[in-house]
């Protein structure tokens, strides 16, 4: 796993890439982050159990940072709903959700925006999408109250 920093003036954007595993060492990043920071997980492909341990340790040290998580892939979202302290004090801005086209027997990952797609947090429903291949309505490929449970914490 590696990361890349971009100074956006009023906030710092950090791109993470690859698999978050036992080699996840971001002490250097910890020192460089100040004020508002956004973590972009768009290129993270997986997180294993040892990676979860290292990530949780890391995120709990980020007490001095206003943290925003964007483009969270499905493995990250899954951990968000399973582990209550997975994102520390951070907030999720956008994340991917699994959709499945029964006609094509193919899965698709769709990017959802928290502010756009989940205005009513009391009644969380998955937005509908049509299959890019056949145009049929796709089904949400998980259980809504489980997959979106992390939204209740924000």
């Amino acid at each position, binding site marked *: 796993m590696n990361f890349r920093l971009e100074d956006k003036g009023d906030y710092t954007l950090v791109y993470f890439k690859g698999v978050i595993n036992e080699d996840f060492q971001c002490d250097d990043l910890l020192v460089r982050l100040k004020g508002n920071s956004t973590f972009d997980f768009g290129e993270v492909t997986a997180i294993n159990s*040892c990676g979860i341990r290292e990530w949780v340790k890391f995120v709990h040290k980020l007490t001095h940072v206003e943290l925003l998580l964007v483009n969270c892939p499905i493995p990250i979202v899954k951990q968000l709903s*399973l*582990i209550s302290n997975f994102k520390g004090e951070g907030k999720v801005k956008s994340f991917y959700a699994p959709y499945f086209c029964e006609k094509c027997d193919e*899965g698709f990952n769709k990017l959802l925006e928290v502010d756009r797609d989940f205005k009513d947090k009391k009644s969380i429903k998955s937005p509908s999408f049509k299959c890019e291949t056949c145009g049929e309505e796709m089904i949400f490929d998980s259980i809504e*109250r489980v997959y979106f*449970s992390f939204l209740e914490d924000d």
Partner: protein
Amino acid sequence: MYFKKPHFSISSKMVLTNVILILIIVTLLGYISIIKTNKIYRQNMDSHVNARHKYLWEKGRSEGYKLALNSLLALSKNDYTFLQSLFETIVERDNDLSYGMIIDTERKILTHNDPNLLNKFYDSPLKDLTSTSAKSQIFKREKGKEGFLEVNIPITSKSKRWGTVILGYSLLQLERDLNGLEIKRTGDMKISIIYTILIGLVFILAGSLVAIDQSLRLTIPVTKITEAVTQISSGDLSVRVNIKSKNELGKLGDDINKMTYEIQRLMEQTKEKAAMEKELEVARAVQDAIIPDEELHCLKNLEISGKYIPASKCGGDFWAFYSLDEDRTLVTIGDVTGHGTPTALITAAAKASSDLVQNSLLEIKKINKENLDVTAKDYFERLGSITYLLETLNMAIYNMSRNEFFMTFFVSVIDTKKMRISFASAAHDYPFIFQPSKSGKIDSLFVKGGARLGEFPDSKFKAAEMEISRDDVIVWYTDGIMDCMNISKNAYGESRFKNQIVKNHGLPAKEIRDNLLSGTMNFLGDEKRMDDITLVVARIL
């Protein structure tokens, strides 16, 4: 007959090769030198002969023409007395001239320095003795052992050929000169051969010394390497080759040392691996002992069947079930971070703690709580709760794993009398429940997740409850099943898995389990599994 092939050491071979090489080179150079000396002598002798011949030819021609001119008058008058005395004088004065004569066109000797030969016929190789246009000629003639160079000058006047002047120059002096040169040549050749032999011997000696020196420089490190390799081949890997030179042999020595070190390291690793393999086998045996068998377990109003497939020799998944009483069944499932012996020990600790809690639950049930005060009642209520089981497990794993290993865990109690299922989770994947008599949709045993076991010493967990009905199917699993990726890097995903549950829900629990697993394996194809898989299926009867 058997001849033993002679054995030569490298140094002997090198000396021998050098000597042979030098011998060949020196012989070749000597031969070339002799050939060249010989050639030079031959050229000198030839040029000497040619120069002498040319000199005699020029001299003979000059003298011959003078004589021919002076002889014309005497010949016309047939006065041979003058000519006789002239030729005798000329031959006497000229040391090179052996004989001189005039012959007529019939080859008859008209005048000769030797008067005894007068009027005799001369055996001349001349063909044309009559022509007035004949030119002067030269012949080499042998008379006895002596050689002569004979110059023939025609004597002509107007349209008449009077005869031929013949002057014979002796080649004796030339032969003497040539003999002297030949003797000198032979002497020089002998000296040249002796020098060649002496130089050859000096080179052979020097070459042998150089070869011995070089062979020693070569054979000493080679011997060191050979001895070291012999020791290595006999199993002594502590040996090291000490060659100080930086040449190829020095590098070979260094490489052998590196290779020996690597072999030593690999052997130690192999030993360690073998020991670890043994440990893993023991750990696997422990796991096999604590995980229920794969058969269908039929309880009162409930059948349950599970299967654990580790990705490596010893995985980190765990599941168990306990009959708390005839109506209540405790089902647990967990997944430890990593694989190997430590994870097996963590699962063993989880099993031990689960056993203890199950025992406590059984004991607590026996206590008559009616006579207890509120505090004691609360205490026993807490002791009898599933969150207490998680807390106990969390503490056990926290103390054992020193924050290095964590375990996700899901605990459920199925009560087939009250037709309820209560559950709590420690960051484990939420099991699926299919209730055909209700929604007809797949749902999750969802309870807000807590931390993983072993992460914090004081983690708290939440419990939840759900109604169950006859024919409900509950599926517990570890993440290995859903994260399975096929060759196209597509994950198996929830939809396929849930569809399989719906499709197979009417079958006995064991068959549902097997069909779910075969569905996953078919999707996986030949791709290697990266994680353990544990799948437990319960069916309410």
